[in-house]
Structure formats: C-alpha cells, structure tokens
C-alpha cells in the first residue's frame, strides 16, 4: 500500500512537469467560457503527441498500456500547472473497446484517442432522459445502410464532432431494452442538423441537440451486434460515472488553487462563512483525488466499471458542487465587477448531478446493486 511514485512514475512526472512548463495553453476554466471549448481540440492533440494522453489503453488503438494510476499523475500535474484537464472521452473508448469488432476498433479508436477525430455521444432524447431505454430515434435498414430519424439532446461537443456514437432503435417490435443498436454516424451530412444549447452560465460550445432526418450510416458502422446497443450504453455510462475516466480531479484542484490564491492575497476581505466554504472545497477536491487513487489501483486487479461507478459519480458530484459553492461564496465578496468567472463555475456545477445519470438514478443503483436492498 503506497501512495508514493515508483521510480518510473517519478520519471514520468518529471517529464510531464517539464513539458507543461513550456506547453500550458493557459485556457480558462473549462466550464466558464467558449474560449476553452474552442481550444480543447489542439490541447488534446498536443497532450497526446507529447505522450501524456491515452496512457492506459491498448497500443493497437494508440494507447501506451501503462497502469491506469498514471492518469492520477497527469491529473495532479495538470492541476499544479493550472493547465486544462485531460479530455473526457475515456468512456467512449471503453464502450467501443468492449463491444466493437476488431475492424470497428481499428477504424475508429486511434482517431478518438489521438484527437484527430472528434466524437459526440447521441444517447439522451427529449422524452428519454433517465428512462434512456424508451428512446425513439429509429435506424431502419436500407440495403447496406441504415436510415436514421430522431432527435438527440444534451449532446456534448456536437458542434465540433466528426462522428456521433448513436444509440437508436433498430427493432421496434423487441422489448425496449433489446431493440437498440449503436452506430458510428458521420456528422457532416445533409440529414443531420446540429443546434447549440445555451446553458445557464451562458456557454454555447459544450451542449447541443442533434436532429436526424434521413441521415445515413453504413451497416458496417454498427458497433457490436444488432440489439447490443443497451449493453454498450451501460458500459459507456458506467465508465462515464468514474472520475478516473473523466479527469475532473484536475479541474476541481485548479479552481480550488485559484480561489485559495484570491483569499491569500486579501485575507481581510472574506468572512468566516466564505472561508469555511473554501475549506470544504479543499477537503472535497482532495477527497476525490484520493478516491481516484483507490479506484485506479483497483484496476490493477482488473476491477472497473460496475455499480461502484455510481458511488464515484455521487462523490464527484459532491466535490464539484462543493467547489461551486466556494466559487459562489468568494464571488459574492466582490459583486459589482465585470468578471463573472466564479459565478459561472458555480452555475455549471449544478449540471453535475444531472449529466451522466441523475444523482437520484445513481442512488437507486447503489441501493439495489451495491447495498442489495429489495426492489420496490
């Protein structure tokens, strides 16, 4: 049991720290400005090309087959440097790795991992949120293609995406969980319209909605077998719930460090309650860092995914919203200025208890699958 770096890990950390010294793009906090989202693609490619992204994935898809704990080092060093977090797409990689054929994996994964091709995830619909399996987007076979009609929403990065990992109904007569299949759909085509959504903190570059009206996708782009869509979706969302996959540890620590710097500069400006909120944010951000150390160490035993992801998601939400409350408290000390960065960090944090499965759904999963409580 050792939290310390091995010699190889220490060497990796030194190289990363040196690289960040010269290559930190200095983007704003991810959640507060469209400038961040515009700069995210070059940041992804730079991080990958320097050898600091996709560390734990197979070499055949562009990874480095390092133990997952190296991602902890990346998160810690990104936070220390005040650099943007690593891109959040490990859950897509896990879904395609587990369910895709060799051909699908070879065609699609290297481009996701190295950042040359951008992806979005077409799961939720206006009438299928928590009840995802009731989705109605239809993919109907037509020769060696499928034709797609439907409406997806809460689609992150849809404006910049080259591909959409689409969950659609291919067998309307099957029970609702069994009639779904997954596809890699090319986004630039006449049958797809992308509309940005403006979130409560004003950003427009993260979320969108996507309308499919006769969009076409080759049958060879199906990921997994027909009817395997629900299983793939569960793989994706169970990994989407793990903070170790998302790299949010760095994002929270970066905000906490900046808030602490504000208080250190003008200690007399803040009251006890405001400073107390900051202290909780420090505790929560550190809790999440250490929790990720534990969960990524578990992967050395081959343990990942599973219902514990719901525990991770709830802890991640707790951390993000504590950081958000600290940002709000300290912003409140300086109201009247034009900089609404901290207000926007707070507002963005409200989405964390909804996206990737609401906190209420996560609690249902913990109660049933972890605690073994009887179903109602």
């Amino acid at each position, binding site marked *: *049991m050792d939290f310390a770096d091995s010699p190889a890990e220490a060497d990796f950390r030194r190289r990363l720290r040196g690289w960040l010294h010269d290559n930190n793009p200095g983007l704003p906090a991810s959640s507060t400005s469209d400038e961040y989202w515009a700069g995210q693609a070059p940041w992804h490619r730079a991080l990958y090309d320097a050898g600091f992204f996709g560390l734990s994935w197979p070499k055949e898809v562009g990874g480095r087959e390092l133990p997952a704990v190296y991602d902890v080092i990346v998160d810690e060093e990104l936070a220390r440097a005040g650099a943007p977090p690593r891109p959040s797409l490990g859950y897509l990689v896990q879904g395609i790795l587990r369910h895709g054929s060799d051909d699908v994996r070879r065609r699609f994964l290297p481009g996701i991992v190295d950042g040359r091709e951008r992806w979005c995830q077409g799961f939720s619909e206006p009438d299928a949120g928590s009840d995802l399996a009731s989705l109605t987007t239809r993919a109907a076979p037509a020769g060696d293609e499928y034709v797609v009609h439907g409406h997806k929403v809460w689609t992150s990065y849809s404006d910049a995406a080259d591909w959409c990992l689409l969950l659609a109904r291919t067998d309307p007569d099957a029970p609702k969980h069994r009639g779904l299949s997954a596809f890699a759909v090319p986004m630039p085509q006449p049958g797809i319209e992308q509309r940005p959504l403006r979130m409560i903190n004003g950003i427009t570059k993260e979320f969108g909605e996507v309308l499919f009206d006769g969009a076409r996708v080759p049958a060879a782009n199906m990921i997994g077998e027909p009817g395997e869509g629900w299983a793939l979706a569960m793989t994706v969302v169970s990994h989407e719930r793990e903070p170790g996959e998302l790299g949010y540890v760095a994002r929270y620590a970066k905000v906490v460090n900046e808030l602490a710097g504000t208080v250190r500069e003008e200690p007399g400006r803040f009251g006890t309650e405001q400073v107390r909120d900051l*202290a909780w944010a420090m*505790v929560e951000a550190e809790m999440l860092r250490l929790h990720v150390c534990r969960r990524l160490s578990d992967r050395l035993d081959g343990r990942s995914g599973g219902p514990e992801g719901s*525990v991770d998601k709830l802890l991640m939400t707790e951390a993000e919203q504590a950081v958000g409350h600290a940002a709000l408290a300290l912003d409140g000390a300086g109201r009247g200025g034009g900089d609404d960065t901290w207000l926007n960090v707070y507002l963005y944090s409200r989405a964390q208890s909804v996206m990737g499965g609401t906190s209420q759904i996560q609690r*249902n999963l913990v109660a049933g699958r972890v605690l073994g409580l*009887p179903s109602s």
Partner: protein
Amino acid sequence: MDVRLSPEQRALRDSAIQVVDRLAPAAVRDLDDAERTAKLDAAVEASGWRELRSASSPGLGPLASAVEAAIVAEELGRGLADVAFLGPTLAAELRRLAGAPPTASRETVALAPDLSAPACATGGGLGPGAVAVDARDSGAALVLVPLAGGHALAGVALPVAPGPAGGMDLTRPGVPVARGATPVGVAGERTLGPADLQAWTALGLGLACADLVGTMAGAIRLACDYAGSRRQFGAAIGSFQAVQHLLADAYVAMEGSRSVALYAAWAVDALPAAEALAAAAVAKAYCARAARTVCEAAIQVHGGIGNTWDCLAHVYLRRALLSIDLLGGVGPSLARVLEHHGIGGSDGLR
C-alpha cells in the same frame, strides 16, 4: 502508486475481523457481559496490536506502520469492540517519540476537556476536566509537561475502579483525571518537539478516522439488515426509495471517508509531520461530518426502535461522537486545512 492493501495487510485485517466477529458485542446487553469483554481483551493482548507503535528496539521506528494500526482500528470500530486500543496505541507512540521505555502495565493518554488536544500540566498540576480516553483497564495516563523548546512526558495515576461505564461512548469509557493530580515524570531520551506532536496528532486523527470508517460500515450494515426485514405497507421498508436514498447516501459518504482515511494513515509514516497533519486534517473534517450523518441515518431507518436503548444504532453513534471529537472535529480540522494552504486567522471556524 498502488494503494491496494498488501497480502500481509489483508491477512492482518482478516485476523482482526475474526476476533471482532467472535468476541465483539452482538447486542446492547452484551456490553455488560464481563466474561466476554475479558476474552476480547485477552485476544487483543495476545495479538500484540496495542504494541504496533512501540519502538522495534530502543531508538528505532515502530513495529508496524500506521496503516497496520488503522486496519485494526477500522475493524474494531466496525464491530463496536469494547476493548482498549486507541488510547494505549497513542501512549505507546508518545513513549517512542520521547525515547521512553515501554511500560508493562496498561496505559492511555489524557486529553483536554474537549478532547481536541493532549492534556498539558503547567505549574506542576493539570487543569480541571482532563479526560483519560479509551481508559478501560488503564492504571495511568500520559500527559505533557512544557519545557524550554518542547514537552516532556509525565504520567498521572487513574482510579482503580472507574465506576460503571457511561458517558458518550459505551464501548471506550473515558475516565476523568482528578483535578490537581500531580504528574510524575516519565524519563525519556528526547524532548518532544513541535514536529513530534504534529506526527503524534496525525496518528491520533488517522486512527480516529479509521475507527469512524469502521463504525460507519457497521451502522450501515445494521440499518440495511433492518430495512430488509422490517415490513410496512406490505413491503420491506428497504424497497422504498426514500429509505434507499438515505442508505445510498450513507454508503457513498463512507466510501469517500475510506479514501481520505487510507491516505491519512499512510501519510503518518511516509510524509513530513506537517504534511501528515494536513492529510489527517482533510480526513478528519470529511470523516467527522460523514460519520455523524451516517449514524444518525442508521437510527432514522430503525424508526422508533432506533431511539430505544436496546437497539445497537445509538452505540454506533456514541462511538462515532467520541472519535469525531478526538484531537479536533470538523471546525478545528478545517482550520488546519486552511493553515496548510497558507490561510491563517481562521479561528472563527473553531
């Protein structure tokens, strides 16, 4: 980095689980079973767990790391083990840090009335209200005596028969130290400096956090078992979402606590004292808040029964309350976290 327990650490945990499952109280009435508590004490004595932090030989480090001590503490907490461990372990740590020889008789430590700091004898005597913690079968408690540049150790005798168990924690009784008790110096090779006391405090907080994690695990298990068997409206109450979410939140709080507590225990021996104390403060703030909420939830799930003396739920809560206060609860811990980040003057948090 690999924070999984080693095979040896897992074996230690398994043997602690065995002792607890065999000899710890299974019901409130068991707390009065002197034959059982004597057997439990004998099993812990035979295991050597109370000596884990004694010097391996004079002037050297402890027999085992704080992680091993925390593994034992967690299982004792999970089982509501009514046996001395924390107090004697902290006394052994003080003796080792001061270069004092181990003692053959049972000994614990005395803390200030609010338990937030070690008891300190100034002007030759102790102030009012000092408490010897986890004092079952202890004949003496260690206190600090200020010297130029640090502290020396001294011992105060405790009453032979402390009277019926009572107070906050029914499993780890405290004993008031008589006002004006005269400490008798304990010869040591070294003066305890500020870093020694930081490291000692980090160990105490780390063990308290481990005990809290175990206490939470035991309380959650108790509540889940009850929720699965108690029926209302024709169904087990554990099938109702309102009850499920209460217990799910409790489990999540315990898992977050487990992560911070593990790091705090590791930090005691692996990091410089100031860093170890900061890690311990993060853990204590988190675990203290979590444990009170979790144990309160266990009482709530039990409904009216949970508010009766004969339900074990309050024994978990009471054990947690002592661990929460030990060497500083939420407020003092948050103040320590801020100080470590260079934000002082946070006394208002206390």
